[in-house]
């Protein structure tokens, strides 16, 4: 009967034939066909409960599995093979179990019983198969079920079984740390063994235990002398062919021991002391002609750095790494850089000595090595070497792979800020980054660059000229264009200034400057953010370049029909400033106050941007609150301010404005809206002031200028002497006769600048006076700039206003003190 059946079903293909057939398939489809056919046959055979060819079929299935085809239907067959008494069956069965099962599958629980039986089998090779499988697919349940058996086997006198059991215990502890207790007694004596397999696995187990529990670590500290002795024997004993690897005695064991010593000596002076000598010996005696010697030295460096070792030993360790850096083998160089990076904080000076070698690694053909070298280079920059290092890093930035560029830029800028020897160098470095790395620069660099230029008032002329030159030669780099646009807008009047040391003066006409910005604005490849910067810059230039304002107006008006809401809004707002509010324009477009220090962070843009907006809105509302503290009817005054703002904006954004109610809330909403208009894809941090908020920033600083804009009261000329003209724009606050707000505006029509300008005012006792801080202390010649200051006056008795003035300034190095009195205030203010 059986014979007949066997004849009727063909003999399954041999594994070798199947492999051959699969390999000869010409296409993936062919291969799939062969595999599917074979799988079908194998399934049939499994279904028929065929015992003879089960082993062969499972082996074939394992091959098919490796090719990526599903083979889970073989799992139960593996169990059957394991349960077989034949060694071949068991061998393939366990192999299949290791490949097809893992602890996530419930089937593997079925295997536990077979394992338990085989662990106590009298044939050591069957025990070994069970141990090996346990080591590979040891789950939590299996660990608990078989931990006892494994513990017994650790005590076996057979080294072959012992070492495997020790590694199973290692696996069990990794999986279920609370089973550790069970193994500690058996582990103690393991280091007395001679067999290297047992020693090696024992060290592994002790390492794992010490890492898992501080108590055990403490317990095993007393093994240090024994470990030292084993290590000593290893390096002192002569050549032993069995464990030798290119002239190094059992590197596998040496490395494991060194690692365990590191864990035992960590934060323990006594243990560290015990191992100092042997570490020095191994470090000096290891043959380094081959990789294997380096593997040991590498481990020993980590150990020396990880324990409380002597200073001399630490220097030795860093020098070993220094030698690694000069090695021809790229793997060794990589490891050295990686390790130096880990130890640089602890042994800064020792690492510093290898700086030149490290910097040379920036030119390594291997990208992984370059990546490590760049990290390490940044870690090594300090006040003394910043110039040299930066030169190298900027060179690197020029040629490095695109993936490095943006981080590299941010790091260079951060390091430059931290260690710059002087402002000029700092600005030069940041400019170089902007011109070198192009569009890879992240938004944070733009913010930092603008802030840097802004806060370095002595170099405004230099910065703006350099940026102009850079932009002229390349308008396609967005971050550069943004910084340049901001600076040209802000300091446009300095573009032809001659007092820039050792630089050729730049001779450009206003038209050239405007044309350049216009080109950036018109360029299709310019980002919207860049265009926003440019349009604001052009607006600012309208007050810097008085003769070109018609042309500027034309350019700006053009964008009133831009499809981009942001640009359109700006354009419309700015155009309004040319017509309806032309008298306000110079005041609004004054120089920005110094940007307050911004943390030079490299956090991603969007959150920061939000923060900035909030920050700004906060300070804004505070500002309003302060100016109007004495005013009982606060909302209506603010309403005035907001009416202006919203009026200006309305045509562009069609935001429904709320004319009454909490004015501050309106504006915050407005800012919020604009903030969220910025598409998040621009990975650009918007600094608080340089961008779309510009137009609001001026009203923020001088809210009452705007109030004044709607006033019909005559302008009071408070002082006019030697070119210095001081005018008062007065306004009743909230239509309250007891409150007056005066905007002081000072201009200089003489040929020379006035510096250290200070304006002071005094009133009779029946008044109260509150002077806010001025917009600046410098008056540029030829009416090309001004200083404004807000004066708040409380006049409870509604008396005619009189005021005494004191004015101090320095012109051409000569201090000037002036006094004056004003009594020509319009009576409407208090009547």
């Amino acid at each position: 009967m059986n014979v007949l059946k066997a004849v009727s079903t063909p003999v399954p293909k041999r594994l070798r034939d199947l492999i051959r057939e699969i390999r000869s398939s010409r296409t993936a489809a062919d291969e799939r066909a062969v595999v599917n056919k074979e799988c079908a046959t194998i399934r049939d055979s499994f279904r028929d409960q065929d015992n003879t060819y089960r082993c062969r079929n499972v082996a074939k299935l394992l091959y098919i599995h490796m090719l990526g085809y599903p083979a889970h239907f073989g799992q139960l067959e593996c169990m059957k093979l394991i349960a077989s008494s034949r060694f071949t069956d068991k061998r393939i069965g366990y192999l299949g179990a290791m490949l097809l099962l893992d602890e996530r599958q419930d089937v593997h629980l079925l295997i536990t019983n077979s394992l338990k039986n085989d662990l106590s089998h009298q044939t050591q090779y069957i025990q070994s198969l069970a141990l090996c499988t346990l080591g590979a697919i040891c789950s939590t349940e299996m660990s608990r079920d078989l931990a006892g058996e494994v513990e017994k086997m650790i005590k076996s006198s057979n080294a072959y079984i012992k070492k495997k059991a020790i590694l199973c215990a290692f696996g069990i502890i990794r999986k279920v740390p609370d089973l550790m207790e069970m193994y500690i007694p058996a582990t103690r004596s393991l280091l007395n063994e001679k067999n290297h397999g047992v020693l090696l696995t024992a060290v592994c187990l002790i390492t794992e235990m010490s890492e898992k529990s501080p108590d055990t670590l403490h317990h095993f500290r007393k093994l240090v002398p024994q470990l030292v002795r084993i290590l000593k024997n290893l390096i002192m004993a002569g050549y032993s062919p069995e464990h030798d690897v290119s002239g190094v005695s059992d590197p596998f064991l040496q490395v494991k021991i060194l690692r365990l010593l590191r864990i035992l000596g960590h934060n323990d002076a006594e243990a560290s002391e015990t191992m100092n000598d042997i570490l020095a010996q191994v470090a000096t005696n290891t043959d380094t002609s081959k990789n294997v010697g380096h593997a040991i030295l590498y481990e020993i460096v980590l150990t020396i750095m990880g324990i409380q070792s002597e200073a001399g030993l630490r220097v030795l360790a860093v020098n070993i790494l220094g030698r690694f850096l000069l090695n021809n083998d790229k793997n060794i160089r990589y490891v050295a850089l990686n390790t130096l990076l880990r130890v640089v904080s602890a042994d800064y000076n020792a690492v510093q000595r290898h700086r030149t070698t490290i910097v040379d690694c920036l030119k390594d053909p291997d990208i992984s090595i370059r990546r490590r070298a760049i990290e390490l280079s940044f870690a090594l920059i300090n006040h003394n070497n910043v110039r040299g290092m930066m030169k190298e890093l900027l060179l690197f930035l020029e040629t490095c792979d695109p993936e490095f560029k943006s981080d590299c830029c941010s790091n260079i800028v951060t390091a430059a800020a931290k260690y710059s020897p002087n402002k000029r160098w700092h600005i030069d470095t940041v400019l170089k980054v902007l011109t070198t790395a192009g569009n890879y620069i992240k938004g944070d660099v733009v913010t930092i660059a603008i802030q840097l230029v802004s806060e370095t008032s002595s170099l405004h002329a230099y910065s703006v000229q350099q940026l102009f030159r850079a932009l002229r030669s390349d308008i396609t780099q967005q971050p550069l264009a943004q910084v340049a646009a901001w600076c040209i807008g802000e300091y446009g009047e300095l573009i032809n200034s001659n007092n820039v040391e050792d630089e050729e003066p730049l001779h450009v006409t206003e038209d050239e400057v405007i044309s350049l910005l216009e080109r950036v604005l018109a360029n299709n490849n310019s980002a919207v953010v860049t265009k926003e910067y440019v349009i604001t810059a052009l607006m600012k230039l309208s007050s810097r370049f008085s003769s070109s304002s018609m042309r500027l107006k034309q350019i700006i008006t053009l964008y009133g029909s831009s499809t981009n809401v942001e640009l359109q809004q700006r354009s419309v707002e700015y155009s309004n400033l040319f017509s309806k509010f032309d008298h306000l324009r110079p005041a609004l477009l004054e120089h920005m106050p110094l940007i307050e220090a911004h943390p030079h962070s490299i956090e991603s843009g969007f959150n920061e941007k939000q923060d900035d907006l909030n920050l700004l809105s906060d300070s804004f509302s505070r500002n309003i609150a302060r100016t109007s503290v004495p005013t009982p009817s606060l909302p209506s005054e603010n309403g005035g301010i907001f009416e202006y703002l919203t009026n200006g904006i309305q045509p562009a954004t069609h935001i429904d404005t709320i004319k009454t109610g909490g004015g501050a809330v309106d504006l915050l909403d407005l800012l919020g809206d604009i903030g969220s208009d910025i598409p998040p894809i621009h990975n650009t941090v918007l600094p608080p002031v340089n961008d779309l908020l510009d137009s609001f920033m001026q009203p923020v600083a001088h809210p009452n200028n705007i109030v004044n804009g709607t006033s019909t009261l005559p302008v009071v000329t408070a002082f006019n002497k030697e070119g210095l003209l001081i005018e008062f724009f007065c306004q009743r606050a909230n239509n309250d006769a007891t409150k007056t707000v005066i905007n002081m505006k000072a201009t200089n029509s003489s040929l020379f600048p006035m510096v250290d300008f200070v304006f002071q005012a005094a009133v009779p006792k029946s008044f109260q006076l509150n002077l806010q801080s001025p917009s600046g202390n410098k008056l540029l010649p030829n009416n090309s700039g001004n200083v404004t200051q807000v004066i708040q006056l409380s006049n409870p008795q509604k008396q005619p206003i009189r005021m005494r003035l004191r004015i101090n300034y320095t012109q051409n190095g000569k201090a000037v003190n002036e006094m004056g009195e004003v009594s020509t205030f319009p009576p409407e203010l208090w009547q």
Partner: protein
Amino acid sequence: MMQFMLLFSRQGKLRLQKWFVAYQDRTKKKITRELITLVLARKPKMCSFLEWKDLKIVYKRYASLYFCCAIENDDNELLTLEIIHRYVELLDKYFGSVCELDIIFNFEKAYFMLDEFLLGGEVQETSKKNVLKAIAAQDLLQEESEEPKSFLEDFGFMVGSSGT
């Protein structure tokens, strides 16, 4: 501790996979695909290490085969190269100048060898001789267990235990 070892050809065909930590089959396939692509894309002048997730990948090419190991952060990558080399030496001794075809047609033997050298992701035996001795003894045991079966088996005749 080594987390897994993969052997694959220059054409990206997997030849051997040994996992010492539990992953789902789907994850294993994904990792394998990802690493094969990563390693094959590396140029010869690049170093043998790469950082991948929280693991270190150490690979080395022997003729047409790549040996690729994933080790943990504390492990020694230079020593891992020695482990790979030792494994290659063992295969070489066993097959007699091993080539990719040996490993394809005798993949189970390559696994048996690995299981005598590593266990649970750690080296269990540093003596080449001991590993080869254990393999030879098991091969002998296998031959003995197969002996009762005659050549007839290959022709489909059931001889032995089940033939009643």
